[in-house]
């Protein structure tokens, strides 16, 4: 029953075109930021700095969220393990760097197929039977189990002590008087490139067409010859691979612990709800907005306080626009 409501009127198309919400969001964000500048009572250099950091962070958030929204749009499954898959890819990169001494960004490239295969296997061996019966609690519980399993197996292998791979490209770059380290810029650019590439794949290739077809109507797609199970597995694989990219790009400036990715599950979920479940564009915009909220908010609420603002946005979305920015309703 909920299956019908969430999949029927919600994310029928993975990629949505729409300029109206984008303008609204852009105007709102600009107005709010201008307000922070004008009456925020903070040093303007500090504000610029947090805006730049926020946008760079938001790019990576967007990538994690795209994976989540894609899996949701096609399979109707909220992947609770998204955050720990991020952790897992970071540790894959770490193992490749610390072991054979492969450079971080090459290791990231190697982590992509690993995570892609992992995602496909999860879908094929664990979720397929449950998704085809149409239950949504089953897959959610399985992904919860996977999340716990990944975090604790990593804990067993690497212990809880923080690990770091060090930054391969030192130095930083100045934009409008704000400092942005190269590794963060690379992460942002990489995330954007992968996001664009994914959008192109979804819009222009026959694989993308079949993914969109399955998202719109799995039964109909099967009738016209789409191998639905294969599309499911590939989608989960793509979702995992986009997380691998995000994880690899973040590794240089992240202190690795087995629970480092956990908060990303909920952040990505908030972003996806903000953007509209199943919408890739929404996830991208949502990622940037949440990145900004977190860093600019940190000016006023230091520590974990800025995350409260992120949840405040979430509650507001639930109240005012539960279908999200780009959700159809």
């Amino acid at each position: 029953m909920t299956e019908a409501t969430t999949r029927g009127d919600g994310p029928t198309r993975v990629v949505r075109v729409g300029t109206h919400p984008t303008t609204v969001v852009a105007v709102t964000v600009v107005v709010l930021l201008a307000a922070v500048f004008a009456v925020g009572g903070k040093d303007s250099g500090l504000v610029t700095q947090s805006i730049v950091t926020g946008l760079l962070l938001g790019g990576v958030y967007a990538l994690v969220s795209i994976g989540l929204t894609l899996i949701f749009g096609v399979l109707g499954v909220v992947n609770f393990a998204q955050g720990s898959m991020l952790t897992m890819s970071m540790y894959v990169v770490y193992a490749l760097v610390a072991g054979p001494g492969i450079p971080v960004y090459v290791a990231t490239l190697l982590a992509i197929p690993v995570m892609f295969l992992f995602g496909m296997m999860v879908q094929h061996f664990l979720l397929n039977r449950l998704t085809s019966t149409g239950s949504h609690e089953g897959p959610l519980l399985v992904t919860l189990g996977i999340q716990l399993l990944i975090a604790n197996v990593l804990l067993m292998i690497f212990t809880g002590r923080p690990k770091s791979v060090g930054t391969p490209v030192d130095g930083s770059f100045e934009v409008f008087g704000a400092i942005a380290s190269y590794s963060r810029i690379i992460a942002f650019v990489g995330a954007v490139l992968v996001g664009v590439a994914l959008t192109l794949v979804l819009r222009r290739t026959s694989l993308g067409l079949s993914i969109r077809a399955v998202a719109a109507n799995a039964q109909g797609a099967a009738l016209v010859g789409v191998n639905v199970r294969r599309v499911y597995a590939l989608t989960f694989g793509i979702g995992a691979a986009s997380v691998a990219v995000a994880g690899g790009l973040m590794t240089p400036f992240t202190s690795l612990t087995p629970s480092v990715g956990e908060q990303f599950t909920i952040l990505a979920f908030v972003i996806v709800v903000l953007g509209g479940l199943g919408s890739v564009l929404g996830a991208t915009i949502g990622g940037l907005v949440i990145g900004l909220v977190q860093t600019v908010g940190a000016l006023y609420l230091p520590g974990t306080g800025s995350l409260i603002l992120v949840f405040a946005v979430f509650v507001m979305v639930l109240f005012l626009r539960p279908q999200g920015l780009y959700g159809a309703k």
Partner: protein
Amino acid sequence: MTDTTAPRPTTAHELPAADDPRLKDTWMRRQLVVLVVGVAVLSLLPLLLGEQAQSVAIRTLIFAIMAVGWNLMSGFGGMFSFGHAAFFGIGAYTGAYLLVDHGISPWISMVVAAVLSAAVGVAIAYMCLRYKLAGSYFALATFAFAQMFLLIVQNLDVLNKTEGFNVEILPSDSWSMLQFQQGSPLYFWIPLAILAVAVLISILYVRSRAGQYAQAVRDDEVAASSLGIDTMRARLIAVALSCGVTAVAGVYYTQYYFFVGPEQAFGSAVSVEAIIPAVIGGIGTIWGPVIGAAVVGPLSELVATVLRNPPGFLSFLQGTSGLDVAVYATLLIIIVIVMPKGIFGTIRDRWRS
């Protein structure tokens, strides 16, 4: 269902009389008998267990109360909560705050916490269900709320931020303050009684009008509302009961451990501890959560014991942490895929057929 067109037995003696014992619904009576016998048997446990084993048993009981609470809304109401830590935490913190800052008896806190938690739960559920956002969306929304409460508590001075509350240890036993000598069997009997009440609530609720409505809404919302059931009301009642029961577990937690901090109350691990026993035992059954807790509760202790002196082929695991959670995560995945009705649900179905 009686079908008027079907041939009816014509003679009176072929019809079973209305008071025929075979037609009596003995379900409720059987559940109550099991409950009474179960409580009687379990109450002997503290006499057999050592202090260490008793603390494991008490933790298991707290798990079980949470799982029974979780099951009320998630199993019978069909609304999966991934954020029951929110309600457990409200209980734990209400108890701690009222006791430490105002010296109010935990027994009163249990009532206050249950009401408060039910109100918060209803508000959250109403917000989520208003636009028919159910299923996974609902689950993650509750999770988000639990995380939000965690962050808020960590940043609130009045709740001691990340330090939490320490309960003062009294010099002598006190019923009103729920404190007894360390290792006293009362520490076991009280949560056992709470669990018994929680199970009793489940039993009565399932057969009540409100419970039947909630199950009808869970199984087919459109059909239920077309029969005139107020679906929102039916669901919110389930949520209120569920959150209330879970909060009481929280109050007892603070009381038993003399301490509560944000992570112990609102951490995501707490939500998981409410879900896993219920899923493993059997979602939407009366006894599933209790059986599941009995399986999961002692598991981490068991794993810890094995790891202290591992057999040869497991020696590489010595000194690692995380195995206990990894084991029950694996168990969770296997149960969901292989026997989605859980241990109790599967056995019951076998028995019937």
